[in-house]
């Protein structure tokens, strides 16, 4: 597809979608959201890019190898779950620390966040692999 309107819109929408996806992922612990839905929103941004500029341009824009993105996500999730094992608690138990964050005061950071980040990357990796394969088949 070669549409100036879509291409111009995508230039503005992609960064917005990515920021929104990260916000949704971060708020997921207490509010609606999380790694899965955040990953889907992020992948939707890249998919839009793929439709506007073609899959080749998207692969260049992504820079990272999608298999490695998936693997890293899986590694994040596994490590987040296994940290609890190392401290003698059952797999996937949440471990929390308070970190002073300028402007926010004390922010509690824990392994569920790491797990969500892992899910985020796995979802982006899987969805983009599927979307790009389909787009490349059509091209």
């Amino acid at each position, binding site marked *: 597809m070669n549409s100036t309107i879509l291409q111009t819109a995508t230039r503005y929408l992609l960064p917005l979608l990515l920021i929104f996806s990260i916000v949704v992922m971060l708020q997921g612990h207490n509010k609606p959201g999380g790694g899965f839905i955040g990953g889907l929103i992020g992948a939707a941004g890249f998919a839009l890019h793929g439709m506007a500029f073609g899959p080749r341009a998207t692969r260049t824009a992504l820079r990272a190898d999608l*298999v*490695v993105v*998936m*693997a*890293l996500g*899986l*590694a994040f999730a*596994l490590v987040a*779950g*296994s940290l*609890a*094992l190392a401290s003698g*608690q*059952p*797999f*996937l*138990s*949440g471990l929390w620390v308070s970190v002073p964050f300028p402007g926010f005061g004390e922010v509690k950071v824990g392994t569920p966040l790491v797990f969500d980040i892992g899910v985020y990357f796995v979802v982006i990796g899987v969805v983009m692999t599927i979307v790009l394969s389909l787009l490349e088949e059509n091209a």
Partner: protein
Amino acid sequence: MSALPILPVLIPLGTACLGMLGHRSLRAQQTVSVAGAVALVVVAVALLARTATGEILTLDAGGWSAPFGITFVADAFGAIMALLAAVTGLAVVVYSVASVDLPRKRFLYYPLTHVLLAGVCGAFLTGDIFNLYVCFEILLLSSFVLLSLGSERGQLEGAIKYVTLNLISSAIFLSASGLLYGTLGTLNMAHLSVRAAEAVAEGRGHVVTIVAMLFMVSFGIKAAVFPLFFWLPASYHTPPFAVSALFAGLLTKVGVYAIVRVFTLIFVHDTGYTHTILLWVAALTMVSGVLGAAAQTEFRRVLSFHIISQIGYMILGVALLTPLAVAGTVFYIVHHIVVKANLFLVAGVAHRIRGTSDLVRPGRVGVYASAPLVALLFMVPAMSLAGVPPLSGFWAKLILIRAALDERAYVYVAVALLVGIMTLFSMTKIWAEAFWKSPAPEEGGTAGETAPRTPAGMLAPIAVLAAITVGIGLAAQPVFEFSALAAGQLLNPEVYVGAVLGEAFATPVEGVDP
């Protein structure tokens, strides 16, 4: 609380993860893959050693106590299944190094194999019915990719049937889980066991039985029982030999495991109905599988139909539901996984030597003439499958037939014996056509042609699995004692319930005959 029950799931996942990170280097993938498979065997052995004392290990994921969180439970049955999955996984991974082609290996063959193992081990060790569904999906998704990887014409044709029927099965499984949750208000299997007994005591037993039948259909498709087995012989002969060995050894047995688990733990209150159906299904599965095999002339298709007929034996044990019969089922599964995976691995070597898997067309050279060791290594699992003493299959069949005799189920004894003889006939057919016969010169066999040498990496797993088969046959007593222990736990759900939920839940409900 020990982390042991979840390690057989985490190790393959971690291995898959490392394999994907290093996916540009084939050497790195192979090293990680073999090391991960070895680690899985080690952990599974440790798990088995713990459960062999009769202890049931549990782990509440995230510290959310049962029945609210997801619990992993390793009883004797789950642990032995996890060990069998680990051993098959290791054999197949080592075999793959020497046999699977480069394009497949580059396209994440090893990580997918490990994800499949994670799903299989997860299914064996989970104590939550919805988690069981998730594990089924994990192993199915990776099996879909492994089956269609390479995109050969025959592969895609087989994969379509496989995917369609398995998706239908998953849909039924999911709806059945939903109904079960709606009816009994829990998904924890131990809690389901308690709640099902309560529901029956309150006169809601018919609803439980309806849900039980949905589970039977869903798991029946996965276990390839009569009349839901058509996807299996249509697909198992199409992927590389290593992949079909992995599938043949493990995937249908996950279905059998699920049937055994739910029909000994949860749905045991209307056995006159559910288990009678299982009994018919068992007999019909045995007969239709072995008759189907008799009509086939392709090495792996013959073996595929034999998977079906053997599933019938395993179901027979659950259907009879006596301690000896269930012990027979456990023993049979132990014997069968090793033997069946091995037969598919040998089929790969035979194909390499003969240049064809067709049993009618003469191959390049006779296997026996050019590689007598391979022929011998075929004989061990083949004769064990048919039930020739002193190999493992003989004892497995003996226990089941003895159990059927005790129950005066003479028709089923006759069927089991007859199917055993017909299995022997099939194995002899393969032996005569693929191994014994050397092609006559006028049939296209060139006298001077020599067979390719079989790499040690392909022979070693076959030899080890054959040694295990002989070992089970010669040391049948300890294996039987372990099976009897597993059967004892399966037939006394209060042990399982007590281990998962604590003693308070373990007392039987008033007015229910357990």
